[in-house]
């Protein structure tokens, strides 16, 4: 798989993250971690940044190796 992730694809990925973000504290509690509201905000901001970085990295890598999907979004 070498295709770039389009902006539409990114939008859908971020939409899929919403349930995780919304219930992040519940999720953490399942693993015995209780988060304060401040910690929660930092954690989900980090999560979103991480996904954005991962997508950017993926697209940079795909952009240098792909020969058929260079159009992007």
């Amino acid at each position, binding site marked *: *798989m070498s295709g770039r992730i*389009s902006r*539409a694809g990114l*939008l*859908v990925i971020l*939409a899929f993250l*919403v349930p995780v973000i*919304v219930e992040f*504290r519940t999720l953490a509690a399942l693993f015995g971690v209780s988060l304060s509201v401040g910690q929660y905000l930092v954690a989900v901001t980090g999560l979103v940044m991480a996904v954005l970085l991962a997508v950017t990295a993926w697209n940079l890598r795909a952009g240098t190796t792909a020969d058929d999907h260079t159009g992007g*979004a």
Partner: protein
Amino acid sequence: MTSEELPGEELFLDRFPDEAQVVRASLWSAFVALGIGALAGIVQALHRVGYVRFIDSADYYTVLTLHGVLLVISFTIFFLVGLFTWAVTRSLDRPVENIRFTWAWYLTMVAGTVLAGVAILGGFVDSIPISADVLFTFYAPLQAHPLFYAGLAVFIIGTWLAGFDWFRSWWIWRSENDGRIPLQTFMVLTSMLMWYIATIGVAISVVFFLLPWSLGIIDQVNPLLTRTLFWYFGHPVVYFWLMPAYLLWYTVLPSISGGRLFSDPLARVVFVLFLILSTPVGIHHQYLDPGIAEGFKFIAMTNTMFLLLPSLLTAFTVVASMEHGARQRGGEGYLSWLGALPWRDPAFTGMALAGLMFAAGGFSGMVNAGMNINYLIHNTLWVPGHFHLTVGTAVALTFMAATYWLLPQLTRRRLYSRTIGLFQVVMWFVGMVLMSNAMHRAGLVGIPRRTAEPQYDGFAFDAGLSSVAELDAQVAIGGTLLFVSVVLFLGNLIISLLEDPMEGTVDRSLPPALSGPEDSPEVLDNLSLWVAIALLLVLLAYSLPIGAIVADGGLFGPGTESYPVVLSWLEVVT
């Protein structure tokens, strides 16, 4: 060319201009209901949580009735009749037999909606003695104005006539053609047979009890009986909302994904299962009703659990068809084929997200169906949380997405903005994730549904890890996003229609299934057999409970005074 294919180069409205007009009228009726219903929805969301309360809390229930009736009766069923007319016409590739008859049933449905709508809106004006603050379920002894019941009856008669129209097309097609019923027509016919069986309950309830009672011909009704008759209709109606979405997922979504339906025979099996199993389950809405023996509830529960089967089979077929489409588009790998799907197309993304949300709604539905866990969530906010995923997303979002796809072939207009369309469907998904998630969680801690002010004097809800304020915020933000999403949807459509007609055509042919109807046994098309089995199951599930209810309380009792009346309950107090 099989009958499943329509030449891609000819638009539906060119081939069937009269039918296209009826389809457009039906869809627009649906969208008017959607707009008003959505407005009622945001008023409720903000009122409940206490953020904005510009209506009186007593009027909340008028708004709620409007929201329920317009969205789950008018929006869903007007869309359904439009889509089914399109589907039968194109899959049989023949015009309707008599376009005047077609317009007649459409206008009958409009008349019914207007009658019921006037009765509901009358509830806002105290000086007019007309109201129908009875919510979508109209449980007696809450009483609505006769116009409400009459409107409902007229609307349902309209749908019956519509069904006759489609059956007639098929009967004539059958006398001129050999072979299997084309898949889309098969889906329409089985859905309508289910509908005929299901509406018997509400028709008896309205015509023999509620309408005469609201007119003063009879003094009282048996509240448990009319309630049971309502739910006899009230569960299959949810599948009636869902069937057009299934039709789209089976016959349109694979094509949008770039592929073909995985299996035509399994699609037929699924619709037959819905026809058989949709009705003998209604008592699962009455798990907590006194006056119905546990054994009857158990029967409804097992039938309900087996009703999961067609939906689980659908999940497989739809995902398999999407994967096939993705691989046709060059997708590879175990999961990376997902990236090859046309996510930029709002029609695709909307339907895919709707299907995903339906899976989540299915899981909360399994909890509802679990007879004893149901105690925990019955009539809490969990329940609307559940059905905003099913009818509110699986159905509503699929309809909106399908509209983007249908638009050119019905109106010769391109969608004004695909980007807005994409934002709109994603916004619906995000809004519903927030709102429905919060509603489910609120239900688990006991916050009730159908309440203008779920804030009480004597105690506070314990929301556990979260807080009630956080859940309220999720409902308010989610509800707002959903409302904005509807505005974007309607705006995008209206602007599209103002644009100039497009030149040329668009390819809207639907390729046949990978495994075609020739792989399925002929017996699947034996509709009389399935109707007989469906009726038998209904008799088994309902004859004893209804017999017992009538034996215990009588056909018209043990009732009480109707409400609203002039505070007659005070007499009982003193």
